[in-house]
């Protein structure tokens, strides 16, 4: 006993410094238990699993550069006369916010670079979140147990939109000021409380003196604070649930196959941070983003054509542009449907994708955990719905840029608007039908491959003169991978009479569920997987190639 203790003590004395520090920390924080579970944690390799990292890293870049910008930015709407180094604005009246942004861009060395990194990173952050969300959606990674993490991610996307909006509004330039004016007009359209919210948000009439200061605290404190919390929670859940993986040999619902965090993922993920930062820094070095000096200071009586928000708000912009001008007056009140309906659709449209996991799990009635990802083709209805959603989103993006589209493609802006109005309803339906068909076609091809093998590209002439293409049988790995997916059977309402012969009334929700289930998994919505019997019959049969 005592000898053992003394040897431990001796070896501790000899231990390298790092180890001693870790021991010290473990005694106080218990880091070893944490490390035991996580240091060699396995992460599967797939490029699409790194989309979330793009978001995480651009978020970190935004925070880093944002802190730098706060050192120079003055969130004030006090009016000053400009006498800085940009000649075309000399002597112009502007808010301090705008002036300090000019100073960052012209007189702080590297200030412009940091501003541009901040803004480009924001654009990439939101784009990354969109694509990441689509990856999770189309592979079914949102299923149990990850529904809550899906919601966290969704909230991050929405909060990111508003953080971006409050951020690009801060310089108080003519473009963003126009956007804020639009927001104020949209707020006014809210029934009953609209005018009150507007007065309270802007500290009186638009634009007032408070907007920048208030947006500033929302942009740098409130929203990013919530987002940081959500990001941490999102990551903890990713660690806790362990990453999903695509089906493949040796990969099951009960394991995760990949490389350990230390060292491979430490290097890959850590390295990827620098890669993302590097790409965005180069982007900021070669391409202008939001050149506020060219836009001029905000004045509510001035405007420029091509008044668009940043891309992630473009979809809302499109909804507003495409909407007909409906307005109802009654009993001394006005219902501004022309603005309020797009506002409501904006919310509902986003809510639809947020709630989708719950809808699908209700339809399938599946309470099991899912860690193996679906290939999009193997869930045709889901994939179709997702593509329909993306189509509607993209059509509205086009709507948001209808004037730019019109000038650059020599079209009539009215025609583009009508295209968007019709496309918003027709496009998703067409996209759904086409996508589903493509998915089924791909499923059929997979089935053929399993049963008949891969087309080898070699043409053989048979003795009696017939030409055939040689089919190579698939390897065991491929056979497994192509047949690993599960196929649901449509849910039944159950017998119309119960065990005692008494008529049982199916509830409306049950009927709906049965209907949806049939639409999801019924005939025509999936191609039955090849069965063992089919396979054996074909492989053992003669005359097959």
């Amino acid at each position, binding site marked *: 006993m005592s000898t053992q203790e003394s040897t431990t003590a001796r070896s501790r004395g000899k231990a390298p410094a790092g180890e001693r520090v870790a021991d010290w920390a473990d005694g106080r924080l218990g880091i070893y238990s944490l490390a035991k579970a996580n240091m060699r944690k396995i992460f599967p*390799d*797939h*490029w*699409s*699993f*790194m*989309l979330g*990292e*793009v978001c995480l890293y651009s978020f970190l870049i935004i925070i880093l550069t944002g802190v730098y910008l706060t050192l120079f930015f003055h969130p004030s709407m006090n009016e000053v006369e400009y006498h800085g180094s940009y*000649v*075309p*604005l000399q002597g*112009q009246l502007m808010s301090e916010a705008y002036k300090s942004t000019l100073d960052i*861009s*012209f007189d702080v060395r590297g200030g*412009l670079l940091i501003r*541009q990194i901040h803004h*480009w990173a924001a*654009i*990439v952050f939101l*784009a*990354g979140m969109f*694509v990441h969300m689509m990856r999770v959606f189309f592979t079914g990674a949102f299923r149990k147990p990850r529904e809550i993490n899906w919601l966290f991610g969704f909230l991050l996307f929405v909060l990111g939109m508003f953080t971006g909006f409050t951020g690009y509004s801060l310089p108080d330039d*003519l*473009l963003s000021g126009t956007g804020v004016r639009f927001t104020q007009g949209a707020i006014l359209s809210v029934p009953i409380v609209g005018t009150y919210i507007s007065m309270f948000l802007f500290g009186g009439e638009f634009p007032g003196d408070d907007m920048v200061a208030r947006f500033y605290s929302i942009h740098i404190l409130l929203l990013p604070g919530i987002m940081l919390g959500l990001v941490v929670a999102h990551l903890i859940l990713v660690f806790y649930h362990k990453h999903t993986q695509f089906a493949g040999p040796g990969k099951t619902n009960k394991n995760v196959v990949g490389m350990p965090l230390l060292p491979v993922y430490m290097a*890959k993920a850590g390295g*990827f941070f620098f*890669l*993302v930062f590097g*790409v*965005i820094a180069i*982007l900021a*070095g070669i*391409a*202008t*983003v*939001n*050149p506020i000096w*060219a836009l*001029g200071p905000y*004045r509510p009586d*001035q*405007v*420029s*054509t*091509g008044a*668009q*928000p*940043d*891309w992630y708000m*473009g979809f809302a912009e499109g909804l507003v542009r495409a909407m007909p001008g409906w307005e109802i007056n009654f009993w001394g009140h006005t219902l501004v449907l022309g603005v309020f309906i797009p506002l409501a659709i904006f919310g509902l449209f986003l809510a639809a994708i947020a709630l989708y996991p719950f809808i699908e799990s209700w339809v399938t009635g599946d309470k099991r955990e899912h860690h193996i990802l679906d290939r999009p083709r193997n869930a045709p209805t889901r994939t179709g719905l997702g593509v329909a959603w993306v189509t509607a989103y993209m059509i509205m993006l086009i709507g*948001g840029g209808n004037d*730019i589209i*019109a*000038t650059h493609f*020599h*079209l*009539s*802006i*009215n025609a583009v608007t009508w295209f968007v109005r019709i496309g918003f309803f027709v496009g998703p339906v067409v996209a759904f039908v086409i996508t589903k068909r493509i998915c089924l076609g791909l499923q059929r091809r997979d089935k053929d491959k399993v049963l008949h093998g891969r087309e080898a590209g070699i043409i053989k002439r048979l003795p009696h003169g017939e030409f055939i293409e040689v089919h190579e049988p698939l390897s065991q790995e491929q056979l497994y991978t192509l047949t690993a997916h599960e196929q649901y059977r449509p849910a039944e309402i159950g017998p119309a009479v119960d065990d005692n012969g008494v008529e049982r009334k199916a509830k409306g929700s049950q009927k709906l569920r049965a209907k949806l289930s049939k639409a999801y998994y019924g005939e025509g919505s999936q191609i039955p997987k090849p069965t063992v019997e089919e396979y054996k019959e074909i492989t053992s049969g003669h005359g097959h190639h």
Partner: protein
Amino acid sequence: MFAPADKAQADETAQSLAIEEGKQLYSVGCATCHGTDGQGTTDGPSLVGVGAAAVDFQVATGRMPAQQPGAQVPKKKNIYSQAEIDQLAAYIASLGAGPSIPTEEQYGPEGADIAKGGELFRTNCAQCHNFTGKGGALTHGKFAPNLEGVSAKHIYEAMQTGPQNMPSFPDSTLTEQNKKDIIAYLDAVNGEDTVSRGGLELGGIGPVAEGLFGWIFGLGTLIAVAVWVAARTAKAKKS
């Protein structure tokens, strides 16, 4: 003593000669649409009182004679020499008083206040022509053209005369000095030597181009990088 009068006489003769020449050019190139005496037809508006400035703008930028009907007559290659344009202008000016062709002194950069020009541009022009004059859409296929590379004289004339659907900005509401300021501002922000500080200008049309660029070159590059990071390393060939 008689010399000035002689000169005036000579000028007048030259002038009437120019009008005569202009009338001939007019009857060949313009009369079909604008009528034999510039009174206008269903195909083209009356040119009485539009002034020499309007002729110089329309013909020198190639808009007139128009090639085909459409939402708007676009700029194209000019087929007349400046001398011919001056003759045409003289003829049209003789039909009724209108703004004359501005001089270098009027549109030149001396004495212009660029910043004031910027403010005026944002009040009067940017709503159609964009912040720095990159152009924009109007209704039913019409558009406000990009002002890049348009000469100072033509910009001045356009403000003065209001070609096609562009409203005019006569001296009574936008003074000569105002116009000079606007032209100087445009030269500063949309001229040949304008520095796009941040790098690639992306057309100067705002967030639509930025969003597209961010998606394609920002996220696109990052996805390409991600594919490299996650890809399998080449295996040694099986022996």
